[in-house]
C-alpha cells in the first residue's frame, strides 16, 4: 500500500510538472493582435521563401515596416488597414483578413490584368436554351462544337451529371471547357471533371505541408495522380479557356488538364493560388486565411503565380464590338482543324 501511494504521488507530481496545455494568445489589444497575426503567418504560411525570391518583402522586414504603425490607442479600422497592408506584401489571393465590416484582400492577380471574359458576349453563345447539369452550363454550338461553362468549383457536380453531359455532347467534333472567371472552390469537383479527360493514371503534380514553424519546415512532396473516371470519358480534342481570374481549385484543374493528351489550354495566364488555404484567428475574433500547403505541377515547379496557356489569346475590341468572343472563336477554329 505504501508503495502504491508513493508511486501515485510520483505520477501526480510528474503530471503537475508537465503542466497544463493552454492558450498562449495574449489579451485583445491592437499590439497583441498585430503580434498574433504576424506570428501566425510567420509560422504557418507556406510560401515565404518563394515569395521572397519573387521580390516580395521578407516577412521579418514586414514586421519592422508595420510594427511601428501599431499602438494600443488606435481604432479597429486603423488596425485593420495596417494589418491588411502587411498581408498584401505576400501578394497572395489566398491571404485574407475578415472583420465584421470588411474583408482584407489582395486581388491584383486579376484586377491588374484584362478581364478576357464578358458574360454578355458569352450569352450570345449560350443563348437561353442551354442545359444545366450541376454547376455546368453546356450547349452544342452551330459548328458542332460542344461548349461547357463551369463558373465555380463551389457548385457541385456528380458523376451522373458528367455522364449526362458527356453523352449529350458525344457527337461533337471537339469540346470547349470554359473555366474563365472561375475563382475556385472544391478540389474534389476539379479532379472529378479532369478525370473525364484521361484514359490512364497520370502524374499531375505534387503536394507538401508544413511540419514545423520554420519557413523551410516542409514534408517531402508527395506525388498527385489523376485517375481516369469509370464513367464516360471524352476522347476528342478539348480546349480549356482560361483567364487571370482562374484561381485556386481552377488553377489546379488547369494544372491537371494540361497533362491530358488531347487537351490544349488557351487564353490568358491563370491567376494562380496553389497554396491550400487554412484559417486561424486573432484575439479580437478577426479571422485570417492563408496559404498553408503548397501544391506544385508535375515538374515540381511552383504554380502559385499562375499557369501559362499553350496558346495565348485575348479578347479583341474588334471582336467584342461585333459581339464575338475572340477566345471562343479561336477555340472553335482550333478544334475544327
Amino acid at each position, binding site marked *: 500500500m505504501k508503495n502504491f501511494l508513493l508511486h*501515485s504521488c510520483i505520477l501526480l507530481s510528474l503530471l503537475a510538472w*508537465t503542466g497544463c496545455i493552454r492558450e498562449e494568445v495574449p489579451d485583445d489589444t491592437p499590439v497583441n493582435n498585430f503580434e498574433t497575426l504576424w506570428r501566425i503567418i510567420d509560422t504557418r504560411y*507556406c510560401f515565404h521563401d518563394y515569395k521572397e525570391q519573387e521580390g516580395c518583402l521578407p516577412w521579418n522586414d514586414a514586421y519592422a515596416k508595420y510594427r511601428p504603425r501599431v499602438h494600443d490607442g488606435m481604432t479597429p479600422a486603423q488596425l485593420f488597414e495596417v494589418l491588411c497592408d502587411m498581408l498584401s506584401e505576400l501578394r497572395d489571393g489566398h491571404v485574407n483578413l475578415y472583420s465584421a465590416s470588411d474583408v482584407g484582400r489582395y486581388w491584383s492577380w486579376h484586377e491588374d490584368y484584362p478581364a478576357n471574359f464578358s458574360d454578355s458576349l458569352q450569352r450570345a453563345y449560350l443563348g437561353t436554351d442551354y442545359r444545366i447539369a450541376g454547376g455546368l452550363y453546356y450547349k452544342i454550338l452551330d459548328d458542332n462544337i460542344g461548349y461547357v461553362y463551369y463558373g465555380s468549383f463551389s457548385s457541385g457536380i456528380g458523376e451522373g451529371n458528367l455522364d449526362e453531359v458527356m453523352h449529350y455532347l458525344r457527337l461533337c467534333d471537339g469540346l470547349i471547357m470554359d473555366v474563365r472567371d472561375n475563382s475556385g472552390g472544391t478540389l474534389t469537383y476539379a479532379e472529378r471533371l479532369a478525370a473525364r479527360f484521361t484514359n490512364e493514371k497520370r502524374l499531375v503534380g505534387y503536394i507538401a*505541408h508544413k511540419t*514545423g514553424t520554420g519557413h523551410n519546415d516542409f*514534408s517531402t512532396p*508527395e506525388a498527385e495522380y489523376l485517375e481516369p473516371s469509370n464513367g464516360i470519358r471524352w476522347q476528342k480534342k478539348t480546349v480549356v479557356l482560361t483567364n487571370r481570374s482562374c484561381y485556386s481549385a481552377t488553377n489546379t484543374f488547369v494544372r491537371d488538364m494540361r497533362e491530358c493528351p488531347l487537351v490544349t489550354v488557351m487564353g490568358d495566364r491563370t491567376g494562380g493560388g496553389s497554396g*491550400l488555404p*487554412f484559417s486561424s484567428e486573432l484575439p479580437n475574433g478577426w479571422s485570417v486565411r492563408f496559404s498553408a500547403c503548397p501544391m506544385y505541377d508535375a515538374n515540381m515547379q511552383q504554380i502559385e503565380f499562375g499557369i501559362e496557356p499553350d496558346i495565348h489569346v485575348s479578347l479583341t475590341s474588334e471582336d467584342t464590338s461585333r459581339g464575338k468572343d475572340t477566345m471562343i472563336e479561336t477555340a472553335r477554329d482550333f478544334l475544327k482543324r
Partner: protein
Amino acid sequence: MLCLIPPHAQARQDMPLPESRHTTHATLFGIGRSSIYETYLSPSTYTGPHLSFLHETLRKTHWKGGRVTTQGVFDGFFSYASNRAGNSNEMAGMLNYTHGWHYNWTVAGKLRLMAGAEAHAALGAIYHNRNSNNPVQAKAGIDIGATFMAIYPFHIKKVPFTARYQASLPLLGGMFSPQYGQSYYEMSLGNYDHNICFTHPGNAPSMRHFLTLDFPVAGLTFRAGYLCDIRQSRVNGLQSHIWNHSFMIGYVKHFSFVKRKEPQHRPFIL
C-alpha cells in the same frame, strides 16, 4: 463493492454468496462547461456549455479471492463553445470507453481503497464553424493508465450514503493527429506523416477525477457527482486541450448473478 450494495442489503453482507457476482450499473446525465483549445483550428480557447452522459458497470469477480473488481465506463459529451470575441463557434463531441481492473483493500474499517489499471479508447471531433480547409480536427486515441478509487459508506441520521472518489491517469498510448500543417485533403490522398503518435504524460498530460455521492430516495438509489475530465496533447507541433467540468446526476441499479448448483429451497435476497 460493499458500499455499492443498497442499504437494505448491507445488513446481509456477511451472508455467504457462493458462485455469485455483484454488478452495479449507474447511468448519469450531466451538464457542465468545456474549455476547448485546438491549435490546428485556432490559437484561441473556446469555452461553452456541454451535455454529457456516463454509464458505468462495476462488477465483482472471483479473481484473487474476490478482491478484483472490473469497471466499464461508457461516456460522452457534446459541447458548443465560443471564442472570447463571441463571433465564432466550435462544436465538440467525444465518446469514450474505459475498462479497468481494480484490486480492493479495506482500511480503517469501512474505507475501501481500490487501485489498478485501465484501458481507454476515445473517438470524437471538434468542428470550427468558419475555417476553410481546416474546419475539423478528428480525435481518436487509445491508452492504458493507472486508476485509483476510494469508497466510503457512512450514515447521517440513519440514512446511508456512499461517497466515492476516483482518479485516472493515462500513462501510455497512441493517438491520431495531422502533422503540423497537414490538411485532411492530403490525408485523403493517402499521404501518411506521423499521423499516429505515441503518447505519455510528457506529451499528453491528462487525468480524470470523479467524485460521487450515492443516496437513497423512496427505495431507489440515486447518484450525484462531479466529473473533471482533462484531456491534453502536444504532438506534431499541435497543442490541444479539452477540459470538461460536469455536474452529473442519475440512478444506480444493483444485480447479483447466481449460479445454481442445485435447486434452492429459499429465495436469495441480496
